[in-house]
């Protein structure tokens, strides 16, 4: 069975937190994100990775494909993603309520974005990837990444502003 060498394993291990956030941006729920992360790691271990591949970029691409498999296997596109789960500790009722409102608004705003915009924005604005790295992961030209992110930001800013005004 193909496997990873030590340096590939270490590189992937160091990328797991970022991959988890990427999974969350794809799935919209922590439980689904954990399952997708597991499926991604299992798939990378099962299929192996070329020696000259960049482990992180390779893993993000495998993750995207694993999510496509998941969409094919159960019609998750038909359902509205769960909201983020509550943290276990809650400092005060008012703070929790405020945070819940904000999380709910941001989650809803993200859900309204086209998938390709959400993925590009997550890779760059959250994970700190360059446009060139995001383009490689999502297999599109750099110019496409730039325009997707700009459109995503504009729509998000508008949706969040409207939600705050309500």
């Amino acid at each position, binding site marked *: 069975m193909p496997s990873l060498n030590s340096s590939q394993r270490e590189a992937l291990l160091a990328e797991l937190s970022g991959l988890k956030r990427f999974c969350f941006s794809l799935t919209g729920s922590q439980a689904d994100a954990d399952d997708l992360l*597991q499926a991604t790691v299992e798939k990378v271990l099962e299929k192996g990775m070329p020696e000259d591949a960049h482990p992180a970029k390779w893993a993000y691409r495998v993750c995207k494909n694993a999510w496509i498999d998941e969409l094919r296997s159960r019609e998750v596109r038909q359902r509205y993603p769960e909201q983020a789960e509550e943290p276990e500790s809650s400092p005060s009722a008012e703070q929790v309520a405020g945070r819940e409102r904000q999380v709910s608004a941001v989650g809803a705003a*993200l859900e309204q974005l086209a998938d390709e915009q959400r*993925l590009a924005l997550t890779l760059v604005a959250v994970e700190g990837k360059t446009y060139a790295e995001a383009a490689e992961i999502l297999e599109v030209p750099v110019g496409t990444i730039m325009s997707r992110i700009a459109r995503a930001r504009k729509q998000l800013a508008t949706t969040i502003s409207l939600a705050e005004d309500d």
Partner: protein
Amino acid sequence: MTTQDLELLSQYLDGELPAGDVARLEQRLAQEAPLAAELRRLKQADDAVRAFAEQGAAGGVPSHVAELLAPVSQSARVIPFPSRRGRAAVGFAIAASLVASVGLVLAPQWQAGDDGPLLAQALETTPSSADEWLTLADGRSLRPVLSFAGDDGRWCREYQLQDGGQQWRGVACRGDSGWQTEVQVGEPADLDNSGDYLPAGADDVDAISDFIHRHAAGIPLSAAEEARLIDQHWR
């Protein structure tokens, strides 16, 4: 706000603007209040998305996932942890790869047009569904599974087709002459509904998965996006 200015601000936030453009933009930001206000608004959106992502990752990386990447001497003893929902993302892929591995029909160039005007017509108008089957006029049953943009600009759809005791899974793409099947694999009619997690060898190939991974330009369409395309005749 012009599209050009929006892209300038966005690149500025991402540190992707060339140095010369940065100086010019910062000069404008000092002089144009609406532009500066828009930058603040976009920055706030970024902050909100980062906070949301952090909350999503709050549970951290599950230890059983991290353990999968432990050094080989340790990971050889690690038993993969089952998915909470019992059907991991790879479940279908593995089950489908088993189908391919048991030597059922694989017809990469099967033409929908050869015997499939009904199939092509149904693919044009039938939404994807998790469990609804459409009975075609010739008695076969069809279930579109999902739709996606192909990397060559065509729209493509994965589907399942049943005829008596036989069942196939395929992908058709819409060209100038309508829907044409690009790949099709036979599968047992009851396998897909079993929900069982079936083991498969590492060398098994899921022709449908591979085709979609190679040719999908992005994540498959949402139900709403697909409905819009059906209404607009996939244009």
